[in-house]
């Protein structure tokens, strides 16, 4: 109470009107600190009044010290959050006689001009727009008045390169504004101090943090492993609460679940690939109570206000503690209320993982956020930005400013390397100690304000229906998709037949193996400690501290009993099992996605080097599936595994990754951020191989490796597993294929298979063949030919002129062959054509309509047709044969 009374009277009034009769813990702790001018990191779940905790004292101070220019910057990672914040803060500002504005990519030019003429006291913006503001003379002058900077959702920013860029931007701001007060708002993280260092560099700061556990009430449930059952369960849960938010891990699941629940009439779907209008409408309808449940992906994690949520359902394991805490934290939305959430686990792995994560959440063991350190492309970006900002600036000053930020403390030799690389590709000019902007730097900067990589989209073309079925992000394609790969998009499985010119040719796939990549990189990796805990739980089989309900417990125990009955050893945190599967070896390793990715790549490169064979890999958090030729079995894999040295992994991986598409793609991305490649570069000019050669042993290449080894795989943790193996703390057991090993293999978790894809494929093919245009010609009298479509060809085919049944069936583009075969004087080649046409007609004579259909397949000539007909396949099997022939044609005749 005392805290409130010490505030500016108008602010006190607002607090009262807003109904804060009592301050929350967070507010009570943080308001005095902010008032004392301390830098502060405020860690609390969404909905505990974080924004107000930061802003009440800031408003108070702004009232106390009037002045011009932007006095407070409120930085959020998302435009949609900006709008939300504007709505929330506009009321306060109006009451307090302060001006507020929002500025980001969508802000109209007129509004920008207004801000330049009379800057609002409080500016809500994004990190990228802040970057842009340094480019303008007038705006720079306004920035000199900044006294407070509030960074919202700082955990989100700090984890990536955007954060590293923002940290430098804050130091660049100090150059104009002098020291200002920094306030960071963060969701719960495992390392709050790191957030403080990230925000403040070497300056002192204080952390106010609300313990998670007392706000959370999380249970885990299981409703069988069938999707329909699970959807029914969700439906029942929706009935039990006034409002429910249902989080799913992928858009595919969101769509599938939505499909099941739409008939209820009170459920909507909300995810990133829906248009903004659709999303906002869903938010509004939920807020107003018109619907009682919203199915959403991570799109709803950040603090967008959608009103009161009574219950949160997490469909499938949340995979990370932080994610669970963040998501369940959306429930309760009132100060100090308890947030209630339920995880619906969908299988054995999923269930154990959910139990572990729920337990870790209750214990407050949230994952740490690791800001990237010394990211060379961010450094290059900021060097260029400073060169443009000052036109010429001394290297020492750059070193000093950038070196104050936490991500680049001691930039020493890296800065010099980056500067000479940039000079080499002409982005800056270097003159002794001076760094100058070049003709290109401003244009570069305008195109690279953001450290978010802009993605090209590649279209996916279905060979069977001959239609484009959707688009994929370039990064997803380069990282995961290769000829023969199976992936999911549009809720269906697809196999890649061909990739060229930004187009991927696919066919529907029937069977899925392993955890399939689904589109747009929605894979959330399971962290190492969670996977280790799951391993330990498999070993102890002591579920008492996890309090599972009886049905859940029964399912787990039944699964483990079946393993025992089959004499299948269960892989744990101290045991790796290698199981011989039909097409390879499954290594059950409880180490999480990133460590398994690193291990899998090392093992595969060593196997292929030793045995000269190609090795396919698929991984999930608990297993590595190596596709191997039949002669390589678990024994050979064990030998490789036991020969590994922890210190060698990184070197092996550098060699292994260099040839991969993933690395090349990463390299191009980094080179773009370095300004060596323009965003709209014409890659046709240079093959990707030459391009990667040009960056050999440059700082660009180094950064690509650094990012690859920190974002895509965890070499350190993989090395830890190898050390444990060498010290005998993990043992290796050879075994046969178990239900546990097969779980990841045959029941992919993030995948819902549509009913009978096969049927759909065949019917599409039938439709297409029916509509195929053909030329029919008599090979007896050679006087009659006609154009028609397959469905309209009579059976049997008879020449209306001579009455013969020797009719050839050709595709329209083959028509000139007829003339060639009937020339008066025929070359050897013409003779050969004639023989083929006669063969064609003979097949039609003996097999009738079936032959006509077969011959109308793409790339199916008389040889293929007679092979197809000789299988005597009927019905669907017959069409499947045609499909096989067409597929073969696409594969072998890709250049025709």
């Amino acid at each position: 109470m005392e805290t409130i009374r010490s505030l500016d009277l108008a602010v006190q009034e607002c607090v009262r009107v807003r109904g804060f009769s009592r301050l929350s813990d967070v507010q009570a702790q943080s308001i005095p600190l902010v008032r004392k001018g301390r830098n502060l990191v405020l860690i609390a779940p969404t909905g505990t009044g974080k924004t107000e905790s930061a802003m009440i004292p800031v408003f108070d101070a702004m009232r106390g010290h009037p002045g011009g220019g932007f006095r407070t910057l409120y930085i959020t990672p998302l435009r949609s959050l900006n709008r939300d914040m504007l709505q929330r803060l506009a009321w306060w500002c109006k009451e307090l006689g302060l001006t507020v504005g929002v500025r980001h990519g969508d802000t109209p030019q007129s509004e920008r001009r207004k801000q330049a003429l009379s800057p609002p006291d409080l500016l809500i913006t994004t990190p990228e727009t802040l970057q842009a503001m340094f480019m303008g003379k007038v705006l720079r002058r306004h920035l000199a008045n900044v006294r407070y900077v509030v960074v919202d959702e700082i955990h989100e920013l700090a984890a990536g390169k955007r954060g590293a860029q923002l940290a430098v931007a804050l130091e660049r701001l100090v150059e104009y504004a002098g020291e200002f007060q920094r306030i960071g708002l963060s969701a719960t993280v495992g390392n709050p101090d790191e957030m403080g260092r990230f925000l403040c560099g070497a300056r002192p700061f204080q952390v106010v943090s609300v313990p998670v556990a007392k706000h959370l009430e999380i249970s885990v449930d299981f409703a069988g492993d069938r999707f329909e059952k699970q959807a029914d369960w969700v439906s029942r849960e929706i009935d039990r609460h006034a409002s429910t938010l249902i989080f799913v891990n992928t858009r595919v699941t969101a769509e599938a679940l939505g499909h099941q629940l739409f008939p209820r009439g009170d459920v909507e779907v909300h995810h990133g690939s829906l248009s903004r209008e659709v999303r906002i409408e869903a938010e509004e309808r939920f807020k107003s109570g018109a619907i009682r449940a919203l199915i959403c992906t991570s799109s709803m994690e950040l603090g967008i206000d959608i009103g009161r949520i009574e219950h949160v359902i997490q469909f499938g394991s949340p995979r990370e503690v932080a994610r669970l805490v963040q998501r369940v934290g959306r429930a309760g939305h009132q100060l100090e209320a308890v947030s209630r959430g339920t995880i619906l686990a969908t299988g054995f792995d999923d269930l154990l993982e959910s139990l572990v994560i729920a337990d870790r959440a209750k214990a407050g063991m949230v994952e740490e956020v690791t800001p990237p350190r010394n990211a060379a492309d961010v450094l290059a970006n900021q060097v260029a930005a400073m060169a443009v900002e000052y036109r010429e600036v001394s290297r020492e000053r750059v070193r000093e400013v950038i070196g104050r930020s936490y991500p680049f403390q001691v930039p020493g030799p890296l800065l010099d390397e980056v500067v000479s690389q940039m000079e080499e590709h002409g982005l800056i000019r270097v003159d002794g100690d001076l760094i100058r902007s070049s003709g290109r730097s401003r244009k570069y900067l305008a195109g690279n304000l953001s450290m978010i990589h802009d993605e090209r989209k590649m279209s996916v073309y279905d060979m069977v229906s001959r239609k484009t079925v959707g688009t994929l992000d370039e990064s997803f394609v380069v990282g995961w998709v290769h000829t023969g790969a199976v992936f999911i998009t549009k809720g269906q499985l697809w196999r890649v037949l061909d990739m060229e010119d930004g187009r991927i040719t696919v066919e529907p796939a029937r069977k899925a193996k392993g955890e399939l990549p689904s589109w747009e990189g929605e894979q959330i990796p399971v962290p190492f400690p969670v996977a280790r805990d799951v391993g330990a739980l498999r070993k102890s089989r002591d579920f008492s501290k996890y309090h599972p309900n009886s049905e859940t417990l029964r399912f787990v125990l039944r699964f483990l009993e079946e393993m025992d009955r089959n004499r299948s050893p269960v892989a744990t945190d101290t045991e790796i099992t290698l199981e011989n599967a039909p097409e390879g070896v499954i290594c059950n390793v409880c180490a999480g996605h990133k460590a398994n990715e690193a291990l899998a790549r090392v093992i595969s490169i060593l196997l292929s080097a030793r045995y000269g064979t190609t090795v396919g890999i698929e991984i999930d958090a608990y297993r590595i599936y190596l596709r191997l030729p039949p002669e390589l079995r678990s024994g050979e894999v064990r030998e490789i595994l036991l020969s590994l040295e922890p210190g060698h992994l990184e070197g092996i991986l550098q060699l292994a990754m260099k040839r991969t598409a993933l690395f090349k793609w990463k390299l191009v991305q980094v080179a773009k951020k370095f300004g060596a490649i323009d965003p709209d570069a014409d890659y046709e000019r240079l093959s990707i191989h030459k391009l990667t050669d040009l960056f050999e042993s440059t700082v660009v290449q180094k950064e690509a490796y650094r990012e690859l080894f920190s974002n895509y795989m965890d070499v350190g943790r993989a090395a830890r597993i190898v050390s444990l193996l060498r010290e005998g703390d993990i043992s290796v057991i050879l075994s046969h294929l178990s239900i546990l090993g097969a779980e990841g293999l045959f029941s992919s978790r993030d995948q819902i298979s549509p009913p009978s894809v096969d049927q759909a494929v065949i019917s599409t093919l039938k439709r297409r063949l029916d509509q195929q245009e053909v030329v029919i010609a008599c090979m007896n009298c050679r006087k009659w030919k006609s154009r028609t479509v397959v469905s309209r060809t009579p059976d049997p085919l008879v020449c209306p002129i001579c009455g013969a049944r020797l009719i050839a069936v050709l595709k329209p583009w083959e028509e000139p062959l007829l003339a060639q075969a009937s020339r008066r004087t025929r070359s050897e080649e013409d003779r050969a054509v004639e023989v083929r046409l006669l063969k064609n007609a003979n097949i039609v004579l003996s097999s009738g309509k079936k032959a006509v259909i077969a011959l109308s397949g793409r790339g199916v000539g008389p040889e293929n047709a007679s092979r197809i007909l000789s299988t005597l396949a009927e019905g669907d099997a017959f069409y499947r044969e045609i499909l096989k022939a067409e597929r073969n044609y696409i594969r072998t005749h890709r250049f025709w």
Partner: protein
Amino acid sequence: MRLEFLEAGPALLVCRTRKVLVAADLHIGIESDLALHGLHFRSRSHDRMKRVLACVEESDPDLLVLLGDVKHTVPLTTRQEYRELPGILEELRKSLPLRVLPGNHDSGISRFLREDELLAREGALIDGTGYLHGHTYPDPSLSGHLIVSGHHHPMVTLKDEVGCSLRAPAYLLADVDERCLRMNAAGEEASRQTRVLFIPALNELAGYDIGRTVREPFSPLSRCMRTDDSEVFLADGTFIGPLATLEDYGDDQEP
């Protein structure tokens, strides 16, 4: 006649009564063109000249033949070319006499050359061997000789079982159809054997898959060669075999 494959170039040494060093497709100035298309790198012209000089050093030739596309930008001459070409040509000249068979990228090259250094676009016969950049029909006088040609930037892709690939500059030797090349005088029967040897580009950024050249020929020479008994060599002279051995023509599986 003896041929020596100089890997350091890659370049070719043709020895008969004289020793002729041949280097093709330097494309000096390629960097400013790449920059125009959004790819920015430092100029590597000097490294390229050094490689030619290393070949001179290694083989002690009597004559240096630059087989066209000495410069890169058409139809203009860029600042980079004005800056770099005079020095590079002068440096080469200092060591030995120089001849240039102009290529399709060499518009305006004459201003950088002495009068006697520039030969005809349609090719020239030097010491019994034909030389030609390769974008034009060859002069009939080359008929019956080995024609050394640039322009095609040949490169092969080799794959091993694991799927890793070697992409390397290569030479392609093939018979050509004289009639197709319009090399016979009217009514004359094709009796002499004319062969073409495509040599790899000295510019390390150039490279065009041989398989694609065969599938989609883009010049008189490539249209008129007989591919059935053609032979492929690597830059160091390693014999790879007939074209047919390169089953998988280095397709672009990677995006």
